[in-house]
């Protein structure tokens, strides 16, 4: 109970201080009265007795103060006083207060926000059981880049025998045609093998998930669907009576059996239906889970052996396995690999920003301590104890640190919201849940407060020791040590700023290179609509139907031309490759990019014809086996001859768009009739790959894209277009419109722009903080040496000389810092180059970093130096008492 008594008394001192004070008064009074009584008893007159007893008790005020100290009353009084004083001085010196608080706030906030983002993305991205063991399998042959492995049901069964695997999940996602309350719509739906929900270990929010008997036993006839949380919200308004209702998917009635919780966003689709286990010949996407404790390397080795031994060929129709290399990527790296690397670098960047911020606070506190050395010396002289002064100074630095910490919390939340808003769509897995990590926030705040205290402590110690004689004798308290510390801090700041500027320069350069790289086509003013061609796929009838939709689109006012393509990505994003056999050129199969387009494609996106012709309208409709190639292909395979009239065999034509092999009406051979200009097709920065374009009617397509070139911005045509299409078929869904440019941004440029803006923001903040630091250091030096300068000027030194002296010494420090920064860049270059495509060592970005810092540093230094050099000499000397 002792701690309880102690606590009670402390609280009493804190909240009932007046009463405690009063009791002390009464207690001592009582003692005095008794002393007087005793003295009277001993024969003194009342007056004598009073005087005598006061004498015995000694200095009553001093005694009271001692007792108050013991009760902790003085401590609190002092604290209150110190706090009040700290606030008053801070308000009276807003430049210092704002500088320090903003520096700390930005440092803490930025570090916390980015740490939290990394935490959400890298450490805990998925709500699944054993999420860190989920891997995606890819394989490559020879020098080819690796591709995802697609497996059939039979192959998956073989794979399940692998000892290093815990589970094999088969899944697929595609645009599905739904009818909900009579409204047709195309949405992304997922097909999952029935074990998925159990394996991922996420229970449904409402209802149930697939059970084994709901899909295996009855296979395809099990028409059940589990809704995603978002789809349930947007399409059913979170109604509770959804279970048991019917959802029309691809003309089949599915019964809704469950709803998943919000964080379950496997492949980000609207709903899940069972993956038909009867269809074992079709290959599909797979997700593997390693057994606990099995390393990726061990699993890769086992799967490699298995794939080679079983000779199963998931992507090709022809056999002939040579050197297959299997690789496994964790689900996280597969979905967000690049971003997570970038966040890693960003983490380094904000750490540097944090260091710069802390250095700033130290600089400001030290400088402020120096400004106040006379005030403190005077206080010391009139009786303040060293401890007392130290406490007051520490209170002040704590107030600043705390304010900075609170600012940091606000900055952290704001920044994280910005980061989340900035992350380009589709870059992060939907399951990710980024929130501020309280532990990180507390950690950053504690570090910042410690930095403030440490920074406040050294001048506080030096100053609290100072004697009045020091002030009288004009000796500069702690000057030399302070100057050295200041120089060191500036050096660190400059070095860190150079690194950040170089990083921002590199990111910006990459962005400029990407956005200005010629695409080979014109993406401006082209709107994109998607349409599922449902019902009549793979036939002449379908081709006619698609052509009717196309004509309807052409008749919309403002439309210049309309092209149809297969459901493919916008070049140059994620090219679709196919094996090709080129007789007379190469014995081995080659790999080319393929695109299925209508004849209007080339004129609509403005690709020039180099030789030969494009197929005609009738050839398009009767599904003629002809195609055109790009210049790169012509150059590579027919460097001297004429490609026109040559025949090649495209393996991809053997499969229909939805993966089924049923009756493609072609023998995979096509005749080359023309050569067109190169369009970038393998990312924005890589060289163009050989490419073959074939009529989109050659394969049975479940869906087409309409590329609509308009005279002006393509915004306004959507409604008219939808009406026109509805006139043809009221049940024909049209996917929401985007434009080619938007698609390019979302898939290619946005990511780089995101990186560039983050790094630029980081560098700009660093530069701003460093400017505050450099300015304060020079201002502090000047104020320390004012008297010296004034004296020298009075003795005949010119303004220019003084200016030059201050300027050179400050610029020396900055130059040294920049040198340190260059060294850091050279050291960091290698690890960072392993993470990104952009190089820190580009001379352009490095030299612009140096020039920026140099110019800005010059200004920051010149202002206080100029002020010192142009001061009014006699007035200064006369007012030297300060």
């Amino acid at each position, binding site marked *: *109970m*002792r*701690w309880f*008594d*102690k606590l009670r*008394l*402390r609280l009493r001192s804190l909240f009932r201080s007046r009463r405690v004070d009063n*009791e*002390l008064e*009464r*207690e*001592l009074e*009582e*003692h005095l*009265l*008794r*002393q007087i*009584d005793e003295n009277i008893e001993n024969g003194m007159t009342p007056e004598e007795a009073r005087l005598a007893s006061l004498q*015995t*008790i*000694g*200095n009553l005020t*001093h*005694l009271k103060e*001692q*007792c108050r*100290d*013991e*009760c*902790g009353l003085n401590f609190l009084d002092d604290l209150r006083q110190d706090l009040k004083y700290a606030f008053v001085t801070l308000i009276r010196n807003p430049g210092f207060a704002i500088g320090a608080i903003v520096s700390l706030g930005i440092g803490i906030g930025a570090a916390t926000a980015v740490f939290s983002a990394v935490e959400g993305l890298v450490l805990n991205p998925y709500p699944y059981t054993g999420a860190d063991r989920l891997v995606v399998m890819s394989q490559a042959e020879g020098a080819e880049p690796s591709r995802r492995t697609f497996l059939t049901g039979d192959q998956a069964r073989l794979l399940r025998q692998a000892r290093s695997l815990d589970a094999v999940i088969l899944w697929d996602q595609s645009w599905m045609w739904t009818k909900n309350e009579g409204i047709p719509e195309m949405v992304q739906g997922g097909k999952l093998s029935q074990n998925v929900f159990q394996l991922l270990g996420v229970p449904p929010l409402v209802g149930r998930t697939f059970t084994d008997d709901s899909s295996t036993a009855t296979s395809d006839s099990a028409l059940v669907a589990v809704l995603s949380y978002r789809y349930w919200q947007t399409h059913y308004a979170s109604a509770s009576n959804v279970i048991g209702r019917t959802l029309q998917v691809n003309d089949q009635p599915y019964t809704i059996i469950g709803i998943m919780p919000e964080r379950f966003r496997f492949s980000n689709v609207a709903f899940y239906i069972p993956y038909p286990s009867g269809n074992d010949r079709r290959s599909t996407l797979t997700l593997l889970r390693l057994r606990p404790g099995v390393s990726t390397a061990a699993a890769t080795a086992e799967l490699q052996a298995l794939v080679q031994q079983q000779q199963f060929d998931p992507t090709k129709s022809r056999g002939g396995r040579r050197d297959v290399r299997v690789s496994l990527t964790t689900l996280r790296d597969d979905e967000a690999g690049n971003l997570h690397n970038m966040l890693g670098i960003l983490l380094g960047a904000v750490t540097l920003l944090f260091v710069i911020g802390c250095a700033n606070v130290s600089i400001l506190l030290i400088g402020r301590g120096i400004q106040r050395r006379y005030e403190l010396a005077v206080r010391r002289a009139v009786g303040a104890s060293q401890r007392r002064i130290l406490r007051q100074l520490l209170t002040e630095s704590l107030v600043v640190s705390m304010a900075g910490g609170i600012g940091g919390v606000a900055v952290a939340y704001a920044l994280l919201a910005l980061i989340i808003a900035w992350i380009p769509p589709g870059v992060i897995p939907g399951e990710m849940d980024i929130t501020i990590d309280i532990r990180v926030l507390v950690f950053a705040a504690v570090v910042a407060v410690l930095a403030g205290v440490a920074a406040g402590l050294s001048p506080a110690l030096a100053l609290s020791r100072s004697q009045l004689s020091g002030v009288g004798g004009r000796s500069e308290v702690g000057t030399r040590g302070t100057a050295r510390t200041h120089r060191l801090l500036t050096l660190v700041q400059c070095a860190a700023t150079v690194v950040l500027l170089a990083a921002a320069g590199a990111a910006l350069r990459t962005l400029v290179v990407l956005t200005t790289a010629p695409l080979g086509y014109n993406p401006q003013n082209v709107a994109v609509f998607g349409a599922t061609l449902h019902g009549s796929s793979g036939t002449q009838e379908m081709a006619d139907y698609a052509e009717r939709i196309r004509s309807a689109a052409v008749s919309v006012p403002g439309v210049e031309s309309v092209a149809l393509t297969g459901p493919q990505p916008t070049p140059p994003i994620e090219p679709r490759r196919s094996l090709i056999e080129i007789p007379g050129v190469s014995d081995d199969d080659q790999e080319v990019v393929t695109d299925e387009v209508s004849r209007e494609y080339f004129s609509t996106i403005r690709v020039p014809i180099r030789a030969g012709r494009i197929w005609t309208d009738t050839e398009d409709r009767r599904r003629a086996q002809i195609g055109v190639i790009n210049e790169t292909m012509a150059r590579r395979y027919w460097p001297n001859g004429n490609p026109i009239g040559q025949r090649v065999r495209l393996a991809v034509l053997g499969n229909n768009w939805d993966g089924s092999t049923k009756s493609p009406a072609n023998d995979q051979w096509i005749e080359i009739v023309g050569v067109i200009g190169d369009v970038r097709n393998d990312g924005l920065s890589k060289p163009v790959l050989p490419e073959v374009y074939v009529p989109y009617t050659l394969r049975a397509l479940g869906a087409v894209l309409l590329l609509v070139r308009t005279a002006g911005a393509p915004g306004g045509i959507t409604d008219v277009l939808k009406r026109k299409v509805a006139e043809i078929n009221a049940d024909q869904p049209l996917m929401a419109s985007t434009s080619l440019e938007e698609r390019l941004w979302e898939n290619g440029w946005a990511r780089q722009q995101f990186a560039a803006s983050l790094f630029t923001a980081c560098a700009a903040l660093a530069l701003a903080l460093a400017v505050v630091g450099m300015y304060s250091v020079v201002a502090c030096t000047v104020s320390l040496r004012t008297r010296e300068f004034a004296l020298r000027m009075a003795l005949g030194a010119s303004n220019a000389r003084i200016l030059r002296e201050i300027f050179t010494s400050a610029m020396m420090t900055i130059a040294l810092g920049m040198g340190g920064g260059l060294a850091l860049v050279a050291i960091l270059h290698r690890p960072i180059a392993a993470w990104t495509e952009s190089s820190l060592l580009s001379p352009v970005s490095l030299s612009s970093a140096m020039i920026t810092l140099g110019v800005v540093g010059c200004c920051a230094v010149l202002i206080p130096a100029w002020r010192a050099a142009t001061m009014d000499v006699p007035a200064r000397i006369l007012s030297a008492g300060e």
Partner: protein
Amino acid sequence: MGKPIDLVQGTLDMLILKTVAVEPKHGWAIAKRIQQVSGDELQVPQGSLYPALHRLEQQGWIKAEWRTSETGRESKFYSLTRAGRKHMEKELDNWNRLSNAINLVVRTT
């Protein structure tokens, strides 16, 4: 009677604890009691008594209570807490060992 001996550093706390161990006392009574029991050899200076009392109270060894005293006025009475008693016994033990040791040294040399 010679001049009263100054208290050995640190022993005042122990004397106070011992004095209030018997019954609750106010500051004046504590000082008087120590003086009286020591045969007027020990004089407790008021300058040390009250800070010491407050220190002991803050540490939870003694607790205070306002009561009407024999003068009819309210006085602050201090009494020993349970933790205080334990602490006092430890202190007494220490003191005994120290004084025995000193006695030994003083007698033999």
